[in-house]
């Protein structure tokens, strides 16, 4: 059998290719080596570059050494990006994920990919002082990869609304802006206190928080969303330990929630979708569907960032409108009679 010239060329290429790879791949590692030697091997006070470090323990219990001052930050979660803007540190944000869309200016930042599988190359290229991750969205894999590259990462893990404030404060400390952190946390607490004053005494409304309809997915009782609902004067009828339980429609029909809560920044989509749901016999077993008792609130409720309070306030207003009416001194509106004719979906 004769080897044609072409097949011979292919053979040679096939043999050379691995050699080429072996030579070129180490290059990024070499870069990482230089980074890590600055971050880990050297003593705390490096005489040559006068780089100082600070050792902190992040919210997952890891000890991390973060170079000071922190000038270049990469955020790997939309909630963390929002928090950075809330803290006023956006000038130091050099990169964020494709999904970081709030505030709108965040979209103009350098993108490093998704939250679950960001591009390590892009991150390395940005030479961050610290990469911010959060346990509920980012993966351990990413954190390990960053460790291997010698890039410090700081993880947050707020489990409820109170912790969101505390976590933001801690983050501000780590990033070297403690006053901003205190201000944000205080503002959050203040607004939550005001809210509690207004609706704390009212009986909570029983709601179903709808994440997805086909199949029906809701939220577990240990999630921060469930806590947010409680602050807004609502309680999720789903009592599950899973974070995103797939729920049996029968169960919901049995429990008959008063109101369905959707989170969507584009309420027209949800409005259309609700009309579709209302045509299905199975869903019509829910009183809330038949009577059109549903609300749409901002997607901020899905993100453990300071803006969640805005969503909580929005929900509280819609569920307990009587508590937000400017009442003249002589008048009193009795607590919780809301006529079914009132469409809670209007913004």
């Amino acid at each position, binding site marked *: 059998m004769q080897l044609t010239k072409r097949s011979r060329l292919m053979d040679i290429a096939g043999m050379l290719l691995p050699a080429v790879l072996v030579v070129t791949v180490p290059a990024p590692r070499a870069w990482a080596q230089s980074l890590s030697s600055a971050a880990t091997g050297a003593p705390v006070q490096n005489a040559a570059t006068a780089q100082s470090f600070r050792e902190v323990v992040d919210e997952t219990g890891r000890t991390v050494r973060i170079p000071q001052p922190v000038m270049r930050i990469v955020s790997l979660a939309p909630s963390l990006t929002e928090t950075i803007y809330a803290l006023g540190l956006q000038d130091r944000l050099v990169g964020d994920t494709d*999904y970081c869309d709030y505030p709108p200016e965040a979209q103009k930042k350098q993108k490093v990919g*998704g939250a679950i*599988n960001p591009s390590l190359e892009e991150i390395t290229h940005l030479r961050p002082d610290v990469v911010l991750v959060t346990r509920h969205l980012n993966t351990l894999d990413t954190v390990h990869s960053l460790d291997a590259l010698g890039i410090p990462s700081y993880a947050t893990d707020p489990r409820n609304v109170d912790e969101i404030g505390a976590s933001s404060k801690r983050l501000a400390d780590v990033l070297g802006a403690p006053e901003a952190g205190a201000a944000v946390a205080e503002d959050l607490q203040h607004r939550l206190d005001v809210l509690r004053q207004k609706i704390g005494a009212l009986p909570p409304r029983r709601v179903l928080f709808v*994440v*997805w*309809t*086909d*199949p*029906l*997915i809701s939220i577990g009782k240990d999630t921060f969303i469930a806590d947010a609902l409680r602050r807004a004067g609502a309680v999720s009828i*789903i*009592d*599950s330990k*899973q974070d*995103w*339980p*797939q*729920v*049996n*429609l*029968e*169960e*919901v*029909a*049995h*429990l008959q929630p008063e109101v369905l809560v959707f989170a969507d920044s584009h309420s027209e*989509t949800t409005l*259309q*979708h609700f*009309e*579709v749901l*209302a*045509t*299905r*016999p*199975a*869903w*019509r*077993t829910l009183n809330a569907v038949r009577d059109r008792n549903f609300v749409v609130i901002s997607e901020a409720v*899905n993100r453990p960032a300071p803006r969640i309070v805005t969503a909580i306030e929005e929900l509280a207003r819609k569920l307990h409108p009587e508590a937000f009416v400017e009442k003249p001194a002589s008048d009193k509106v009795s607590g919780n009679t809301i006529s079914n004719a009132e469409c809670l979906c209007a913004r």
Partner: protein
Amino acid sequence: MRPLTIQRLFLQCAALAGILFVVVIIALKAGAVEVSLFALGRDLIRVIVHHGGEIKSDYGLIVMNIRLPRILLGIFVGASLAVAGTGFQALLRNPLADPYVLGVSNGAALGAILALLVSPHLALLPAVADLLTPLGAFLGAAATIAAVYFLGRRDGQIDSTTLLLGGVITGSFLAAIIMFLMTSETGSNLRGMAYWLMGNLSTSLQPSVYWILWIGFLLGAGAIYTTASDLNLLLSGEKEAMHLGVDLPRVRLVVYIAASLLTGLAVSVSGSIGYVGLLVPHVMRQIFGSDHRVLLPTAAFGGAIAVVIADTIGRTVVPPAELPVGAMTAFAGAPLFIYLLRRRMV
């Protein structure tokens, strides 16, 4: 010598139908809400006799509008997948064939995902919008059926090996596209999509869809049944079947299209529920033999029973959450398959 007679076939089907009936009753009773079947039956009769009016009781509504449709859907999906699996195992002469081996389910999944992405941008009547996902899934399935058919031909006719290769390649290709779409889609969409792909019966459908499903099942299963004796001969070998008078090209075409149609319909409404199409034919073959004139109807019953049981367990075992039926069938199916394999029954 005990050849098949129509009496024996009828008896065997009746026995299975009886088992299915019992399973359905149990499924109707099981669930989040306590149901008195006696009271429900009484209400039902009252409704039928008085022609109209609705069942007033809470539990009645729940059972009629949520539980019963779900059970009916389970029967349809189980029967369709089992019959399709039997057909493909005969067509491809491969005991490991299942309804998804030719890529139809991936085509349906892709169609459903595309429909989900597109539907917010279309202004549709609510009832129509609701049909968009199953319709998209079915169109995806149909397109895949056509594509694999053209790939699977040799000298103008379907060739089993070529068909299998073409189907597997197409399936992988479609799976890659699905993976790409899933990773580029945002948060909550992704989660819902993953659940859809896992296969579950909790999608609530418009009543009109049920009619389409049942008519589709009768057409598809009926078409395959007309080739039942031919399929028996196919098991001896393709050449032998030809020499015994089987019109091989016609049989291949009919079985391919009918089995793919059944799979497409099932996947459009329930995602990819696994192991039913693969294992139910084998179990029924153990019990009733390889004669397709018996195997096809008993597989249909067997599939229905299996899916209804799996779904009932899935929705009662961790209330208020439920486990997708696809997970339940995999959980039971994988060990069963290993068992059959070890005992050389596959």
